[in-house]
């Protein structure tokens, strides 16, 4: 039996001043699953993640459904792992007090119990005894752990991590991803991982959603999407990564992603696509199922080229 669906997103749209930046995104995340959102900057990954958390700016217009609606339970059933550990912590409060406040903001527990839960959370991420420290007294790696403790202190069902490792060196990256994976294993916490890091996707994600210009252009089991991308966009993105056995000259996708509100007619990727034909410039391709993969492309690669 498959684990229960802890998050179901249907036709999510996010717009600003009548211009849609997220244009109908649908996906499901099951308990214990790591779902990666990948794509270039401006594809709508972060806006999608923020919509799940109810953290969009006030002027944003949102439509579609997110079930269960967790935005009112932020911190409790869904929590954000921020990218920048230093700015996510208050410099003038002790780490333990910040975690205890996070507990008491969503749960009716006494001070003492909140402190104990905070200490336990710090313990779980491998920095016991830091509750009485101020953030500046901790190393960068310890601060990173402290914000993970903060995100997980209320045992949420879903964690959303927006580029949690982009600024980190290889060692720290491993530690952060390892901690998030441990949460998943011990408690079945689902993780929505917004990232550029294809190596992290390969090793930690179960499913990958590839976004382009506010839409999902390819979705499926993470390893299969990486090994045999069907959409020319994902194939191009993978070809741009340096690999030990790769060519000396990297493939660079021509042009730049379109700006929301100035989308080309037809498929939004067509002007940059090596496979584009006339039909691609006429109409936007519908999403369709292809061997357990979801692809929105007029000319998906039937076999999938190794990325």
């Amino acid at each position, binding site marked *: 039996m498959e684990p229960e669906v802890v998050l179901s997103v249907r036709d999510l749209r996010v717009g600003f001043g009548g211009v849609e930046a997220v244009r109908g995104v649908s996906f499901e995340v099951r308990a214990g699953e790591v779902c990666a959102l990948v794509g270039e900057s401006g594809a709508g990954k972060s806006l999608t993640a923020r919509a799940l958390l109810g953290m969009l700016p006030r002027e944003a217009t949102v439509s579609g459904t997110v079930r269960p609606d967790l935005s009112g339970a932020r911190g409790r059933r869904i929590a954000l792992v921020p990218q920048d550990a230093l700015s996510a912590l208050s410099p003038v409060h002790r780490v333990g007090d910040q975690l205890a406040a996070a507990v008491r903001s969503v749960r009716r527990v006494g001070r003492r119990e909140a402190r104990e839960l905070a200490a336990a959370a710090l313990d779980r991420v491998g920095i016991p005894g830091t509750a009485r420290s101020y953030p500046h007294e901790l190393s960068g790696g310890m601060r990173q752990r402290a914000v993970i403790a903060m995100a997980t202190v209320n045992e949420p069902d879903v964690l959303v991590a927006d580029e949690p490792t982009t600024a980190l060196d*290889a*060692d*720290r990256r491993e530690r952060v991803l390892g901690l998030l994976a441990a949460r998943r294993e011990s408690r079945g916490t689902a993780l929505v991982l917004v990232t*550029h890091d294809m190596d992290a996707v390969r090793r930690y994600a179960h499913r990958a959603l590839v976004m382009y210009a506010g839409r999902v252009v390819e979705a499926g089991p993470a390893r299969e999407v990486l090994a045999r991308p069907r959409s020319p966009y994902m194939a191009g*993105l993978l070809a741009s990564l*340096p690999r030990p056995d790769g060519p000396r000259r*990297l493939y*660079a996708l021509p042009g730049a992603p379109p700006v929301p509100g100035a989308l080309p007619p037809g498929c939004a990727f067509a002007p940059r696509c090596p496979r584009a034909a006339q039909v691609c410039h006429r109409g936007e391709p519908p999403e369709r199922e292809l061997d357990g993969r979801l692809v929105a492309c007029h000319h998906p690669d039937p076999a999938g080229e190794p990325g």
Partner: protein
Amino acid sequence: MSEPLLEVRDLVVRHGATTAVDHVSFSLAPGETLALNGPSGCGKSSTALAVLQLRRPDGGQVRFEGRELTTLTERELRPLRPRLQPVFQDPYGSLSPRQRIRDAVAEPLRLRGRRPTPGQVAALLERVGLDPSYGDRRPRELSGGQCQRVGIARALAGEPRLLVLDEPVSALDPSVRAGVLNLLADLRDERGLGYLFICHDRDVVRHFADRVVELREGRVTSEWRPRRSAAAPR
């Protein structure tokens, strides 16, 4: 073996009581890319700043084109600076938000007492893959990758021999990063530039560098060559 473009001997940089760079030595030949690799806080960026003499080292030698830089005064360094140029990580932070792109690119020429012609600036922008019309824009009207290309164009304006590239592609999307790395490789091959390349991404380092110096806690722990440079010589 030709004379090294850059020779660093026993470099020491201290920040207060901590020694960020602890007797680091390496050399770099013209046309060569030497990467400094290691975790955060290993001394990569402190080494880069000391090579550029933007942070005067607390010990050791930095010889550039055979000249010892550490004993030169700021005034004596000035004519040499265009020949060893930095390119930094944050493409927006390294450009003045008020300055037009054209003026940012022309600045190194002006500092050398020349009056840059519009044609020179246009040629530099074109060389880094930007339409010369970008000269009229300001940094915030450009994407991160375009800004980084402007940073490279500006470094090229001084006709450098050595570029110190401090995490030049770390803030960029993979697809944009590929274009910038290709550009840097072309410039290196075409002008015989030496690159001191600082990067924490091992895949990028393996792809781009001829030689890698590993730093830990301010010391050189090992030196290695990515296999590709032997298999595919330029």
